[in-house]
């Protein structure tokens, strides 16, 4: 029998945006336990917000994550609007929906590209990131920036979109459908990917509930939860779309959920552009009364949860930010155990962990001598080699 070793993944790796540290306890090639350490880049945003005025906080929280920079401010302003009982104008609700769905497309396509790279499909990586530019362009013209959109404010949105602009976003969204179909077919029709991703990293519905998993991580386990449908905000209850779920709970299901969700996002955006009413884009908000509010938004990775408490002054007394990855990353304890080391890279990637939300360099070390055995680049290579071997078999 082989002896147990510790595989360190993290805290820093050039492929990933932020720092996170996974320790895999392995027996030979099989993972027997996982330990996660986070918060190498803790920025104290919750403490910082207590010193900002209600109007300044959206600009702070959109910097929580470079990808969910539309979801975080929206969840925050919804919490404050709940405290102050603000009626947001219809047009603002539609504008919020358009920006949030564009964000979902760009986040999911970024993930598909990275997942492709981890598996050794570098063409998928190049294509996904190329076509992702369409949604990034639309976001740039709509908000003035590719990240940190500064779009939301308490009571509405900060910038209106002209008819020309909406027509441009509509064209970008329509142009995305072809490439998305191609990417989806590339994944769904590839026998190697079926063999590589099915029955890998399974998260059961029961574990999803116990860990409080959200977003595509839960929906990939057949748990049909989606804040957009269950607790509708913005204009999601005014357009026709469906919640995508896949039953198996493995990496393949999560990939399918993300790919099909992009089509729904395009559908939502185009309907919003067609139906958008005219009128004001923001409501006048007087002082924020004392009270507590909860705002949650379906970010690309899952539910973003904000809690705000006000005491009648112009600053929040407490602002709690819970990003989806904080709930999704602990699910590795359920999904990674029993896996082979080459499958771990893709399983870790399958929840689309967001490190600013919640570390990543990878060293497999011998438990007794602490001498490194693998680093993350080698793990990715192991993963790519396994795909290569499977491809030869087919």
């Amino acid at each position: 029998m082989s002896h147990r070793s510790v595989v360190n993944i993290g805290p820093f790796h050039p492929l990933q945006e932020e720092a996170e540290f996974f320790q895999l306890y392995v027996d030979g090639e099989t993972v027997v336990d996982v330990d996660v350490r986070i918060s190498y880049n803790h920025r104290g945003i919750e403490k910082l917000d207590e010193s900002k005025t209600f109007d300044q906080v959206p600009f702070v929280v959109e910097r929580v994550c470079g990808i969910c920079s539309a979801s975080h401010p929206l969840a925050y302003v919804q919490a404050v609007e709940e405290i102050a009982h603000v009626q947001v104008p219809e047009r603002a609700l539609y504008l919020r929906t358009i920006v949030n769905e564009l964000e979902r497309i760009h986040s999911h396509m970024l993930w598909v590209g990275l997942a492709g790279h981890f598996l050794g499909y570098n063409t998928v990586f190049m294509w996904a990131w190329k076509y992702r530019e369409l949604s990034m362009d639309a976001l740039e013209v709509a908000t003035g920036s590719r990240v940190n959109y500064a779009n939301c404010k308490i009571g509405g949105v900060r910038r209106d979109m002209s008819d020309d602009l909406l027509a441009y976003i509509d064209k970008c969204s329509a142009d995305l459908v072809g490439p998305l179909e191609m990417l989806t077919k590339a994944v769904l029709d590839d026998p190697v990917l079926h063999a590589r991703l099915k029955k890998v990293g399974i998260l059961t519905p029961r574990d999803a509930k116990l860990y409080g998993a959200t977003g595509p991580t839960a929906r990939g386990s057949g748990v049909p939860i989606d804040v957009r449908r269950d607790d509708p905000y913005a204009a999601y209850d005014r357009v026709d779309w469906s919640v995508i779920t896949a039953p198996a709970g493995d990496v393949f299901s999560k990939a399918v959920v993300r790919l099909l969700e992009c089509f729904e996002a395009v559908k939502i955006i185009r309907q919003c552009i067609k139906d958008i009413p005219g009128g004001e884009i923001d409501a006048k908000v007087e002082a924020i009364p004392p009270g507590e509010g909860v705002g949650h938004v379906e970010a690309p990775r899952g539910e973003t949860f904000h809690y705000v408490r006000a005491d009648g002054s112009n600053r929040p007394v407490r602002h709690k930010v819970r990003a989806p990855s904080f709930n999704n990353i602990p699910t590795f304890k359920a999904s990674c155990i029993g896996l082979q080391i080459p499958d771990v890279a893709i399983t870790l990637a399958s929840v689309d962990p967001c490190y600013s939300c919640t570390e990543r360099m990878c060293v497999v070390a011998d438990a007794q001598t602490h001498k490194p055995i693998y680093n993350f680049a080698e793990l990715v290579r192991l993963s790519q080699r396994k795909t290569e071997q499977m491809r030869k078999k087919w």
Partner: protein
Amino acid sequence: MTVAAMQTQVPLAGFVGDVIKQLGDAVNEVHQCTERRGIARIDPARTVEVARKMIAMDGSRLATATGIDVRDGIDVLYHWAIEPQGVVVTLKVLAARPEMEVESIANVVTGANWIEREMHDLLGANFRNHPDMRRLILDDSWPEGVYPLRKDFDQVVDRPPLPPNQTPPDVNTQGEGGRR
């Protein structure tokens, strides 16, 4: 009549009311904000029993928890989301001074593990029988007993000294933010 007693008499409506009623006499006071949001203060001694009831409900999940530094201790707010009704029920438990301790629910609800560790790190709330109370958020070099999210912690004055093996960053080599 105390404020708490008055709030108890607010009639509970809809699904939020049904959920809170199921918790029985563990609930001390109730406050319903909107149709989809409810807040209930529960008996600190019965935290685990309530958590067990909540996780057993259909479609419920622990969204997260918030710790707040208040006069009497640390207020721990467990936010439970229930789908597909789309409601959020916030259950408040006071970890009263001086121990500031409540029973951990992480043995019943796995998802509470990290958030309770976070509240312990940042606010100094203690969770009895927590399965794994190691540091999660703060660096290993951060001094014991300094809680950065407490109201009396000042970000400038109370900042602990850097550990001896680290030197402060050279302001001349930093980005725009470092140049003053």
